């Protein structure tokens, strides 16, 4: 089926297997990804615009969406600040334990989200290691939006570090030496010359961390209070609607999440493309 189609579209090549490979790829892709996502789109469309709008703007839904997006933005921003510091320290300094720390940065990628979720809750609960320290001061972390933030910082931590590290590693020493020879002190060199050059990588890491945080479920639901309007994240609301068999509502919220995330990511990709055009890669 794809064989004949494929031969007509591609450049002639001596290498065999194009039809088979592309055919299998497209079939698998359609069955696993495209058709299910299409189902989502169709279902969302079947609500009609007003039906969709009513669900999305319901107070509880709005609260959940706002909570998810705002805390994800804040967590991603925190990851930018500390991620740059961590990347800087790992690339430019030598100290005992550096390799171990470099390795551990990838932990949030490898650790199952539910495990992270219960571990974080254990630490920040009122009787936990950190939660217990802060409880006498009336500061509650677990079961509040603050706890959600902590979990989202955990989940997004590697993204900024791993996108900034390679750029820092390749950074020309001569640029720093040039800036110093022109009279810039260290602070000026870092803030006026190096950080602006790192901006594309930082933005990329930010977007990745943000996108991951918005959709995060497992690490968050244990430590969040899951109280509607207060500490209920959008993915949780989707699950709740599903359990109520309100498929329409679940679909609408999912579509809204995907839509907003898509817009944010598109915006940032545009910024990056503009930067690439201006400054060169």
């Amino acid at each position: 089926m794809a064989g004949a189609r494929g031969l007509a579209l591609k450049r002639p090549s001596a290498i065999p297997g194009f039809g088979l490979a592309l055919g299998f790829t497209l079939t698998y892709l359609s069955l696993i990804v495209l058709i299910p996502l299409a189902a989502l789109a169709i279902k969302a469309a079947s609500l009609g615009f007003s039906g969709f709008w009513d669900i999305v703007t319901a107070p509880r839904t709005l609260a959940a969406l706002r909570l998810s997006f705002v805390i994800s933005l804040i967590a991603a921003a925190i990851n930018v600040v500390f991620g740059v510091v961590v990347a800087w320290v790992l690339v430019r300094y030598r100290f005992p334990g550096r390799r171990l720390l470099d390795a551990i940065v990838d932990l949030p990628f490898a650790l199952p989200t539910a495990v992270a979720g219960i571990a974080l809750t254990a630490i920040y609960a009122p009787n936990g290691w950190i939660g217990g320290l802060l409880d006498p001061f009336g500061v509650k972390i677990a079961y509040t939006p603050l706890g959600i933030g902590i979990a989202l910082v955990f989940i997004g931590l590697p993204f900024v570090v791993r996108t900034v590290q390679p750029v820092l590693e390749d950074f020309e020493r001569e640029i720093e030496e040039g800036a110093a020879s022109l009279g810039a002190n260290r602070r000026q060199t870092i803030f006026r010359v190096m950080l602006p050059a790192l901006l594309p990588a930082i933005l990329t890491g930010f977007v990745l961390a943000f996108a991951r945080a918005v959709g995060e479920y497992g690490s968050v639901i244990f430590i969040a209070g899951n109280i509607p309007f207060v500490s209920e994240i959008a993915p949780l609301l989707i699950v709740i609607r599903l359990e109520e068999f309100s498929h329409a509502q679940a679909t609408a919220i999912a579509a809204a999440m995907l839509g907003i995330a898509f817009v944010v990511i598109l915006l940032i990709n545009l910024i990056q493309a503009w930067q690439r055009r201006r400054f060169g890669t």
Partner: protein
Amino acid sequence: MDARVENEMNDVPAGALAPVAEAGWDEPMQVTVEDVAKKFGLTPALHGVSLDIHPGELVALLGPSGSGKTTLLRILAGLDIPSSGRVLFDEDDALTLTVQERHVGLVFQNYALFRHMTVAENIGFGLRVRPRARRPSRKEIRRRALELLDLVQLTGLEKRYPSQLSGGQRQRVAFARALAIEPRLLLLDEPFGALDAKVRRDLRRWLREIHDKTGHTTVFVTHDQEEALELADRVVVMNDGRIEQVGTPDEIYDEPNSHFVFSFIGESSELPVLVERGKVVFDKLPLNIAARGCRDGPARLFFRPQDVEVGSDLSGAIPGVISMRRRHAGARRLDVEVGRAGHRIEIELPSQFEGGVRGRIAVLPRRWRLFPQEPEGA
């Protein structure tokens, strides 16, 4: 783009230069290097070199890679610290100054321009980062940047970004940026190494013009001897962490004082000879060549391919057999095998020369240098 600007090169308004030259330090600076040595770990990069750079001079540090020339430049810049020795800027001890305090203009092989800043912002950077007390106003910085752009013949490009410029243009921006801080000393690290041959040649000429107009003491590092001989007031030939010879281009070319300099600069042919009681002997044959103060014993005879005469009955000449013959630009090049050991020398003759491969020929150098053979392992 470069061709268009090149045309502009020929008509730079004279008045554009005066303000910049005046605004700088009053006098060009003298640089003194005293017995500077540098080790990286256990590896010596410089063995106690000394050098006097006269005010306003354009000096080339010339040598193969590993000769220490870049290390010396970086020490002058303050980017490396010598293991021992002194560096003086006029009368001041330069080693107590940080890079920022030394006021040297640096130009790198790969330009090192700040990619996220425009050309004007790059040039003005050194002025913008000054402490408030010494910082000119924004308007003044902009004026100076535009003035320097005129000087380096890139007028009109102030809003461009480095990625939108050619290599030659980027290097000129790097130059303008270094000049903006009114440096006491200009240090150029293989400034044309990343450019095409044609652009390189154009920029060489341009550099000499700029230097003549602005008069900064300038040191540049290169491994290209053609560049050094063409550009510099004096050439410092370096090898293996030591200075082999310092002199004007003519001195370096015509009177090399070591076999390294002779073979590194220009072309050379070399033969092992014996000096006996003031006479030069090759393969038991006395040559019509004066020993000129070279001591008795084994020596190396150096001469340039062009500096020979040939004949069939030249007395005291080196007999040999032509093994290869080819054209070389407008002349004839011959490889000649001489002596029992079959040493091969290269000579250049006018293209009318008739002798062919396997023909017999006698070669007598008209100009030559003799260097004693160093003991084994030197």
